[in-house]
């Protein structure tokens, strides 16, 4: 099935953001990581498990009337590091963005270790996970030093 066919599954958007090449089944998590699962008021379309030449199957999200920032997109490094992002203006791709992961993931998730100092959510300093490896992604808590289980980490979104 063609790329064009995938895109036609949902209406083309006039203005907003398209996140393509999300690993199959991760679209809900992506929305959660963007804090768009509960609080957003703009139209959001999502397709899941559509065929992809590169990935076999993939998910796609279209967010209307909102241009996601690089900071917001970088949050997705935990679940969709290879996602392609396009900013749409007047039905055309105005800008292409990639997800970047720096030296540290800050205030996105909190450490999964039950005895880490950061489990006290009243503590005000930033939640910081250091990036120790990229492929695969390896994270360690800046404070307690514990390696993070990525599956568990998703449950600790801030």
């Amino acid at each position: 099935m063609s790329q064009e066919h995938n895109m036609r599954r949902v209406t083309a958007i006039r203005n907003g953001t398209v996140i393509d090449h999300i690993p199959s089944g991760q679209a809900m998590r992506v929305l959660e990581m963007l804090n768009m699962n509960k609080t957003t008021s703009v139209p959001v379309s999502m397709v899941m498990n559509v065929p992809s030449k590169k990935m076999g199957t993939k998910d796609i999200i279209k967010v209307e009337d909102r241009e996601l920032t690089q900071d917001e997109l970088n949050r997705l490094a935990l679940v969709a590091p290879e996602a392609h992002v396009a900013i749409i203006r007047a039905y055309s791709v105005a800008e292409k963005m990639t997800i970047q992961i720096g030296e540290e993931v800050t205030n996105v998730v909190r450490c999964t270790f039950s005895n880490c100092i950061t489990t006290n959510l009243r503590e005000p300093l930033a939640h910081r996970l250091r990036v120790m490896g990229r492929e695969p992604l390896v994270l360690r808590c800046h404070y307690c030093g514990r390696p993070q289980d990525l599956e568990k980490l998703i449950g600790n979104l801030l």
Partner: protein
Amino acid sequence: MLAGNYPSALIVAVGNVHGCLSPVVEKRGSNMAGLITMDDLSNDEIQSILEDAERLLPVAEGKIYLPLLQGKILGNLFFEPSTRTRMSFETAMKRLGGDVVNLGDVKTSSVVKGETLFDTIQMVDGYTDIIAMRHPRQGAAQYAQDAARVPILNGGDGAGHHPTQTMLDLFTIKQAHGRLDGLKVILAGDLRYGRTVHSLSHALTRFGCELIFASPKLLRMPAEIVEDLTAHGANVVETEDLLSSLEEADVVYMTRIQKERFADEDEYTKVAGAYKLHASNLEGTKEDMIIMHPLPRVDEIHPSVDKTRHARYFQQAFNGVVARMALLCRLLGVKVPEDISPAGGEL
């Protein structure tokens, strides 16, 4: 605004990431950062601090008065019980002419009212020049370091690190063997929960020591630490048999096996029995082999060992003072004189 709740001189920026406001703290003047893990020190720095400690021995012994830290105040923040670490920090500071303020009993401090560690650190930071801290939560020392303008000395954070203990352990080993490199060291007992052995094994690996981990299965060194050590080129052997390796060891580092780690007392008695040293076990060991223990001991070293030439644990406890004196000077930016003679200062 969160920033409005903190003194303006202290909070220099507020990060705003997805609605999370996090204070960022500016460090005070020329002070070095603290000591949170042994990774904060290079091998050269370790050696240089141990040399300072060696020169400070007569001061630690009370034979010379050398008020290098006069006018400086150490804040002792012990959020969980400590005897040796807290007392030796206090002794070290006072032997160098400095002063100490204590958090006191956590049960009667503001911590029990729900104060965050961040707030406690802001307060003590204002009262002191350096903070020594122990906390039950792992990562608390790094957190305090990020929250404070003064240096933090980690006196133990959960099952994490205990670098000042490692420095005194290294000092004791060097005192006995004249070197740190290439020694064969047995770490025995509870290797799973003991932060002392975690920090020490990392440091010994950096000096090319051969490590033998002797422990019951239940209390083995955590896999991620063994992986870390081997990734750094460590030569590690894991065994349940302590006694069979004794003859080849240069250092035997014993730790306490705690009853509460076992489901029933019979199992504890059976297991703990295999990690006890008696003077009769020491026949055939190297003449200069030393036995160390972070103390307190329960049954793992029989009093018959105390009188042998191998026993070093009480000397090791004393060395806590001299190692911490050297660390306090280093972190406060005070140079230890090359020549510390009794002239003008002998007591």
